[in-house]
Structures are given as structure tokens and as C-alpha cells.
């Protein structure tokens, strides 16, 4: 396989890989490095890539595994708590600023979830994958995926409501 062919295959997936890495590693630099590494790993296995029916799922699995390894190495421990930037491309109105604030909160809430729930939430709610694909990426069965997702969604919402009530009551 030629380099250009490979890059064409990777191109539609690389943003998703990056977002997955960002969800797990939090820091943008670490996520960029992880994406680059994952792409390199795919390139080194390009001979086998034809045998994988779903390259996208395979690419996501490689990214996931690489990020989890990084977390295990504890290299990113000092970068865990979020400093994501939510860029707004319009002039910030009062309501917009409030939303940005909420978004930052949500980012922090998601960051406190267990890794597995974080990933399932990312794959379903952000990337909108089918359960079948998520099961393939996560190397888990669909029922377990649904349970993890349900827990993640409920946990996020409960935390959000708790935070809101704290301000009011």
C-alpha cells in the first residue's frame, strides 16, 4: 500500500481518533502525540489492514489501546484535569458565555467518569457510532456497552443537576 492511499483511508478517521485520545488523555498535546503514534502503528501494520473488514473500527481500537497504555504509564497524571478550550466563533453574548461555562462544567464531569464510560459516551454521543461498531472498537459485547452508556448518561446528568441545585438551593 502506498503512503498516499494509506493517508486517504486514515483521513476521515483521524479527527475521531484525535477526539477519542483527547477524551481519555485530556491534554491536547498528549492527544496529538497519541493520534500520531496510533497512525504510525496502523502504517506499520498496513500489510494486514486489508484483512480487517472495518478499518475505522480497527483504527479506533488501536487509538483506544494506545491511550489506555499511556494512562497506565501514568505519564499523563499531571495533565488529567481538563483544560479544554471551547472556542466560540461568534461574538460572545451573555447567553453564550453562560453556555460556555456549562460546557466547561460538563467537560469536567465527563473527565471524572471511569475510562470505559468516557469512551462509550464519546463513541455514541459525540461520534454517533452504532452499538455494533462500538462493541467492535471496545472489544466488549453490546449489552455491556448499553449498560456503560446508560450509566455514563445518568451520571453526567445527575452531576449537572446537582451543580445547578447547589447554586439555587
Amino acid at each position, binding site marked *: 500500500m502506498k*503512503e498516499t492511499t494509506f493517508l486517504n483511508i486514515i483521513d476521515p478517521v483521524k*479527527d475521531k481518533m484525535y477526539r477519542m485520545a483527547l477524551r481519555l488523555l485530556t491534554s491536547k498535546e498528549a492527544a496529538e502525540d497519541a*493520534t500520531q503514534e496510533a497512525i504510525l502503528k496502523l502504517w506499520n501494520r498496513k500489510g494486514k489492514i486489508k484483512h480487517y473488514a472495518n478499518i475505522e473500527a480497527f483504527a479506533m481500537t488501536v487509538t483506544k489501546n494506545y491511550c489506555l497504555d499511556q494512562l497506565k504509564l501514568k505519564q499523563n497524571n499531571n495533565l488529567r484535569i481538563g483544560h479544554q478550550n471551547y472556542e466560540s466563533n461568534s461574538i460572545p453574548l451573555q447567553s453564550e458565555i453562560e453556555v460556555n461555562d456549562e460546557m466547561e462544567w460538563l467537560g469536567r464531569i465527563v473527565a471524572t467518569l471511569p475510562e470505559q464510560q468516557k469512551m462509550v459516551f*464519546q463513541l455514541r454521543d459525540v461520534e454517533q457510532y452504532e452499538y455494533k461498531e462500538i462493541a467492535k472498537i471496545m472489544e466488549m459485547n453490546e449489552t455491556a456497552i448499553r*449498560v456503560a452508556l446508560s450509566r455514563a448518561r445518568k451520571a453526567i446528568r445527575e452531576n449537572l443537576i446537582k451543580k445547578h441545585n447547589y447554586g439555587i438551593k
Partner: protein
Amino acid sequence: MELSKIERLLKKYDEGNASLAEEKLLRDYFLNEDVPEHLESYRLMFIFSAREAREKFEEKPKVQPARNWYAWTSIAAILIVGLGIFFFNDSSRELNQNDLGTISDEELALQKTKETLNMVSQFMNEGKSDLVYLKEFNKTKNQIIEIDN
């Protein structure tokens, strides 16, 4: 869309049982329409997910940094070997040229050869004269070891 339908879908959504199509209905509703206050938390979650999907990987994917390094090393190695062979050949050729006979007159050549051989034997004799003291060894040896015939 009626609120009752939304709430029914939200229940499925919470349980992780909604299909992608149903979740799309919800997303469209929460991102575009006025949402009653008790569903505000859902609205924020859908906005969050939509925003998170905007993040882009800006770098150009690099694919083979290690391979280039190997290529350059091999080029350097080939150059070194090539130059080495070239210079080696060159110097041996020079040596051969110096060795070629320059005397064409046979008489003169004989003369010169004789001179050279004489010189060599002269030096040999000079060197041999230094070895005279070895006889002393033999004398002493004969005094100690008696050879019976």
C-alpha cells in the same frame, strides 16, 4: 414534536436503548427548539456532544520518520565504502607506476643490478660481523657439554 413523545424517547435514551435515528430526533429537538426548563440538563448534554464533535486533528499525519533515518544511514555507508575503494585503488596504481623499469640499456641495467647486489651483500657482511660474539657462546657451551663420540 409533542413533549410526551420526547419524554418517551428520553427514557429510552437514558437506558441506552434508543436507536441512532431516535437519538437524532432528540438531538434535532434539543439543538433547535425551545426546551422546557425541566429538560434543560438534556439540552446542555446535547450541546456538549455536538461541540465536542467539532474538535479537529490539525497536524499532518506523519507516517515514516524512522525509515528516512535508515535511508540516510545506508547512503552514508555506501559513500564511505565507495570512496574507500576508490582511494585504495588509486594509491596502488601509483605504486605500480613507480615500480616500472626505467633503464632501457641492457649494459647499464646489468651494471646497476650488480651494484645493487654488491651493496646488499656488503650490508649483509657488515651485519654478519656483528654476530662474531656468538662464537663465544659456542666456546662456553663446549666447555660445559662434552659430546662423546
